[in-house]
């Protein structure tokens, strides 16, 4: 068709100004959920949640009913008890899954934009570097919380519905807060770390491998130090152990993985978050110097 027979109308609508980071979150999630690997990982996470759901049902329905034929058998299984430890374990087991999902979703987020020259296109639109960075980060955080805090809080609600009464409610009233806090401690540093790797690496594969290797190497070095020097407090340097220690503090668990208070691992995690934020900011600001 010749050009002179084609045209487009003038745009007469309005332009919204706020919340452009939400569009970035929306777009990232839209691309992510179409991925086959993501769907597979979702299935894995869902199976774990189903097991926990069985645990809640078994504890609240069967074990509380002395006349139930399976009650006597389940009374022996102490691990089925629904308490803070159960939710702490649930989140600990979800953590590697969340790491893998964040790795899948986040390792290409910035480096692919750089490689495909999309940053130039995005920043020629009226979005700020904060919108961009926040959008990328929050899309990972929301995915992570979708696999940790959300299913765990749903389990707490189900637990309250199946075992109604003031006693259950008063016992569990702070559980959602504890779950949300520990979930955020797991998800936020993972997200920032993976985004930082994506920002400094040139390809998604390198970024993913780098993030994975840092995590593994960090754990190994801390374990070696703790083993050789016979000092378990060196486990603080292991990122997963630090997360565990914070989780133990939040969920009031006995027998901490090392004796240092939760403030130390919290400071370590905060330092990692800060460092990653600086790296991400520097890379994004290199592409966009407008305020």
């Amino acid at each position: 068709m010749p050009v002179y027979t084609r045209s487009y109308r003038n745009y007469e609508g309005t332009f919204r100004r706020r919340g452009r980071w939400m569009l970035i979150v929306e777009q990232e999630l839209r691309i992510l959920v179409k991925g086959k690997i993501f769907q597979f990982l979702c299935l894995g996470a869902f199976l774990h949640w189903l097991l926990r759901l069985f645990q809640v049902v078994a504890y609240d329905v069967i074990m509380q009913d002395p006349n139930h034929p399976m009650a006597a058998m389940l009374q022996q299984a102490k691990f089925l008890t629904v308490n803070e430890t159960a939710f702490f374990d649930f989140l600990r087991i979800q953590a590697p899954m969340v790491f893998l999902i964040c790795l899948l979703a986040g390792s290409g987020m910035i480096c692919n934009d750089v490689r495909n020259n999309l940053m130039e296109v995005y920043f020629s639109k009226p979005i700020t570097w904060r919108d961009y960075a926040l959008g990328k980060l929050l899309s990972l955080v929301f995915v992570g919380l979708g696999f940790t805090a959300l299913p765990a809080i749903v389990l707490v609600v189900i637990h309250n519905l199946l075992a109604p009464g003031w006693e259950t409610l008063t016992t569990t009233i702070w559980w959602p807060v504890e779950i949300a806090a520990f979930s955020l401690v797991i998800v936020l540093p993972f997200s920032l770390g993976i985004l930082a790797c994506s920002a400094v690496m040139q390809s998604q594969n390198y970024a993913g491998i780098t993030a994975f290797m840092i995590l593994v190497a960090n754990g190994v070095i801390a374990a070696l130090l703790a083993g050789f020097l016979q000092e378990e407090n060196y486990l603080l340097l292991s990122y997963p152990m630090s997360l565990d220690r914070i989780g133990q503090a939040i969920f009031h668990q006995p027998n901490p993985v090392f004796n240092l208070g939760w403030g130390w691992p919290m400071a370590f995690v905060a330092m990692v978050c800060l460092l990653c934020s600086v790296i991400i900011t520097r890379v994004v600001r290199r592409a966009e110097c407008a305020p």
Partner: protein
Amino acid sequence: MALIELEHVEVHYGDFKALDGVSCEIDGGSVGLLGPNGAGKSTLMKTLLGFNRASTGSVRLLGHEMPRGALQVRQELGYMPEREVVSPKVSAVSFLTYVGQLFGMIRVDAMERTHEVLNYVGLGEARYRKMETYSTGMLQRVKLAQALIHDPKLLLLDEPTNGLDPDGRLEMLDLIADIGQRRGVTVVLSSHLLPDVQHVCKRVIMVQHGRVVEDNSIEALTAPRDGQFEVQVHGAQASFLDAAEKLGVTCVQQRNELLLLQVPEGASGEVLFRAAQEAQTQIRHLEPAKSSLAEVFMEAMKTPPTPSDEDAA
């Protein structure tokens, strides 16, 4: 107030001075930014967009100081980057809708505009395919479409015909010319290809070593030269030249049968007919000599580099 105002703009990449005191104003129409590779065209484009901060001088677009007013400017500006842009996992429709939303459109409006601009740039049913399967020509069309989706006042195009076959190139240039002429959008087209600029633009700004070395309308740059004529004679060319020399005419250039002659100051082309009469030859072709844009460009590119360029080299 001009749409684009640059005053003594300098941009540095480390020690290298990429723009060296660039000053110009653009107040509408289609303007070509010409220069060889590495002259500073893309840097100038990026400075206009607010991607580069000028170390000295001021950059104003649509009345806003850059890069401080970048967000307001970008709302009314479309930019087509030089390098290939691809969002591999999504279709052109999805990508453009997203871009429209980034401009602040609601999703329904963005989707509607997406289809309008994709029709305009001539991307057919391929718009529903993933972008990773597109040819270079298709990606160029998507790049143009994303710059047009919000109906901009000002369009910055960086080498828009890169990688296109001759047909695709012509169609792209027709589209750009149409945007500038029929839709009244101010177009700044950066290219090192003179025919592209000539096809679309009325005015050119030539850049070399980060400096503006020529800024004028194409019409003025290629206007007939004072007292110079292109002449072709039938008969003895040598005796015609002898006779012309006696009348004060000088031969500037001789290319086969075509002569480029300079008549004395104040004289007209009539003197050449007299010379032909005296030499008993016939004039078969006579027209005032004009410079081609290529000649003007070559002349402008002879500008010597500054010491800082030499240091960087």
